[in-house]
């Protein structure tokens, strides 16, 4: 189901949401926003039918249900009663018309601030405190600075690999700020900022990238594959979109727990081509689980532009195809992200349903340190997004105008963070690598005998031929 936002000037306006039937009796409800600019909260008055009842959906499906509300209601409603089929009643038409492959107008994008950081006059958004705004802004700057420093470290050969999140700082920090600590995160790999918000320290990030003994991953993964149980951030996994059905599974488990928490999973535009994307959206809707799908549509999947990735109007329209409420948001607008994710989270938990958010943005950096994006896209395009549409600058303007930040604080903060990252690298490089035993543990819950034997053999060999082995590997 798509929420159509009718932006109008004036004090109040309301949004009408229509749902097409699934296996349930039809229902429609209105969603009303409280008016005026700086109001405290958005609220929904929904009178949807009974909350998702466990187990009812399967048994209803075999019965033909009553009518459905049609989206285009100016059709001849009185005239035709419709015809029953599995799935419900459909009105019939004598006119053979194909739904167009795309609608004339693209789905609109929710936005709070314009490119210069001024709130759009008609936009409704939740009040953000100074503390929260500054924390978000600092997080964005920290992410940007950490990225720059670690990217340079890779170029110097101190890291083997790195992935930056340039251009997506707002998505990272603002979405994290809108979530609760108990919400479980299943990331793709360009969401380090979410982990940063939750308290992962610069030293912890660097330890993982260096694969030293203090890495929570025990040196088993490539850089940027962070994971931390205590931060409710699942370990990054390289294959694309595998985290999506997993997120639905985690949400299923969470649903059974009945906690005031949801699952949030991130993915890029490229991920939406994977089979896992379709399976997980479909499944999430059928199982009615509290999961928020956040798509970072940044225009590029390595060198594949979105025009070659899909032919739909982005990802937001795909939500409705699966029976999922969706919204398109300006991903470079921190306040828009903060608002949309907050509302999505509430809906997901209260109504136990999946929500899809498409955050439009641009991948300013290269895909990774193994990529040179100037080879497949124009340099001035990158420059444009780096300067005129930079999410950090936009938010900075808004925060500074509020009197909550200043230029002096900016330069001081940036210099400070950079120094911290450099120190973390220096400290991290001096820390030992993981011990040999870590190669054999965690394959299974208990180390099996064959691996114990292999470890013995390796240690024997190292003892007998020490000259063949690096000296910095603790045994």
């Amino acid at each position, binding site marked *: 189901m798509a929420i159509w936002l009718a932006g109008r000037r004036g004090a109040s306006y309301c949004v009408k949401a229509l749902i097409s039937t699934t296996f349930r009796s039809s229902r429609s409800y209105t969603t009303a926003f409280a008016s005026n600019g700086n109001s405290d909260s958005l609220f929904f008055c929904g009178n949807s039918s009974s909350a998702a009842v466990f187990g009812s959906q399967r048994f209803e499906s075999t019965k033909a249900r009553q009518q459905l509300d049609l989206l285009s209601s100016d059709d001849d409603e009185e005239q035709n009663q419709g015809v029953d089929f599995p799935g419900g009643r459909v009105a019939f038409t004598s006119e053979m018309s194909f739904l167009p492959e795309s609608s004339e107008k693209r789905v609109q994008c929710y936005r709070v601030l314009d490119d210069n950081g001024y709130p759009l006059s008609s936009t409704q958004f939740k009040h953000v405190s100074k503390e929260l705004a500054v924390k978000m802004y600092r997080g964005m700057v920290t992410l940007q600075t950490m990225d720059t420093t670690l990217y340079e470290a890779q170029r110097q050969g101190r890291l083997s690999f790195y992935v930056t999140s340039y251009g997506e700082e707002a998505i990272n920090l603002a979405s994290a700020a809108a979530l609760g600590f108990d919400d479980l995160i299943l990331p793709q790999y360009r969401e380090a900022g979410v982990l940063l918000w939750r308290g992962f320290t610069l030293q912890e990030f660097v330890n993982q990238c260096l694969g030293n003994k203090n890495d929570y991953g025990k040196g088993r993964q490539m850089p940027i594959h962070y994971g931390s149980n205590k931060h409710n951030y699942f370990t990054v996994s390289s294959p694309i979109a595998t985290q999506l059905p997993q997120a639905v*599974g985690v949400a299923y488990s969470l649903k059974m727990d009945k906690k005031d928490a949801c699952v949030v999973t991130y993915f890029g535009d490229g991920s939406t081509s994977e*089979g896992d994307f379709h*399976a997980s959206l479909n*499944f999430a809707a059928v199982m009615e689980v509290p999961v928020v799908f956040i798509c970072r549509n940044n225009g590029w999947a390595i060198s594949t532009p979105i025009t070659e990735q899909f032919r739909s109007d982005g990802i937001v329209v795909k939500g409705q195809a699966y029976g999922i409420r969706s919204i398109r948001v300006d991903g470079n607008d921190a306040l828009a992200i903060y608002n949309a994710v907050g509302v999505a989270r509430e809906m997901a938990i209260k109504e136990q349903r999946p929500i899809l958010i498409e955050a439009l943005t641009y991948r300013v950096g290269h895909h990774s340190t193994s990529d040179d994006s100037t080879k497949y896209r124009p340099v001035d395009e990158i420059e444009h997004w780096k300067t005129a549409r930079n999410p950090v600058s936009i938010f900075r303007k808004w925060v500074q105008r509020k009197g909550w930040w200043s230029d002096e604080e900016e330069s001081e903060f940036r210099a400070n963070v950079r120094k911290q990252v450099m120190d973390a690298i220096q400290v991290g490089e001096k820390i030992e690598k993981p011990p040999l035993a870590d190669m054999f543990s965690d394959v299974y*819950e208990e180390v099996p005998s064959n691996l114990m034997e292999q470890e013995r053999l390796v240690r024997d060999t190292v003892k007998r031929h020490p000259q063949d082995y690096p000296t910095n590997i603790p045994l």
Partner: protein
Amino acid sequence: MWGILSQKLGAARGLSSQVVGNYVLRLRLAPSAMPMRHYSSATKEMTVRDALNSALDEEMAADPNVFVMGEEVGEYQGAYKITKGLLDKYGPERVVDTPITEAGFAGIGVGSAYHGLRPVIEFMTFNFSMQAIDHIINSAAKSNYMSAGQINVPIVFRGPNGPAAGVGAQHSQCYGAWYGSVPGLKVLVPYSSEDARGLLKAAIRDPDPVVFLENELLYGETFPISAEALDSSFCLPIGKAKIEREGKDITITAFSKMVGYALKAAEILEKEGINAEVINLRSIRPLDRATINASVRKTNRLVTVEEGFPQHGVGAEICATVVEDSFGYLDAPVERIAGADVPTPYAANLERMAFPQIEDIVRAAKRACYRSVPMAASA
């Protein structure tokens, strides 16, 4: 060693091999190996289907985190009725019917295991597991290692594996070797009802991801089952093979349906004076190298039997194992019986030619014992 002895005696004295066999048998100090000796004296019987169903039922009753998910497992009572009655008993949140997406529900299962549930994911056949194999290997098998123990995956993937009867190439492949090669997975292959109960319960309780390879044709077969095996706390150890039939002339390893064939082959061989030891592997990963090697050191000859493709198969691994650990004890090259190296044909006559039959096992055993065998088309 006994095998050679009996041959020499037979050759020297012109005695029939049967007499020689018996003579040699009496010299042994170990208790005589009678077939079917290993089932206790309880007389209850159970089909493999009921064994699996009861195991699932008991584990779901004992632990509310255990749930079943797959296509047709609920309303339809299971494509092969393994999950019969579970939906009525435990409700739709614990017996979840899924849309047709193996990748989807395998991934969802793994995700739910990440967060504390214990899913039992059913594939209608393991041939369809290929559509989910990324989740089995990259998500389930490797997660504990890659997350350094932060994410463990106590999941069971189960379903029929290998050929059935007349189901063609895309429904007949055996995946024992594929999953058996992946560190992080445990791969179990039950044969009898006792195996089915004990190993499935062990798999569900195990904190690691387990691939549980059943066999469609065995579902309907009845086996005697002891009172001990019927107890709800019954569990078999993972990684231990079972010696189904003790013998001293030759070791035959098999798993799943081929165990039955190997036992029948052993009976035929017995009549010809070859006393075969049949090992039911029960577990492909971890492979019970100790039992296999101890047996080969006793008999000095080995025939491996499997329905899967020969190249890179389970038999190849067993052969390498024996060469590594017990080369000096082998009196003959290892005989490897496997399915034909072709996609499974449908026509009944061709299908029969594509999989090991009892005669193939008998001929291989004789070859390993240096008996001359008539030239015949081998599997």
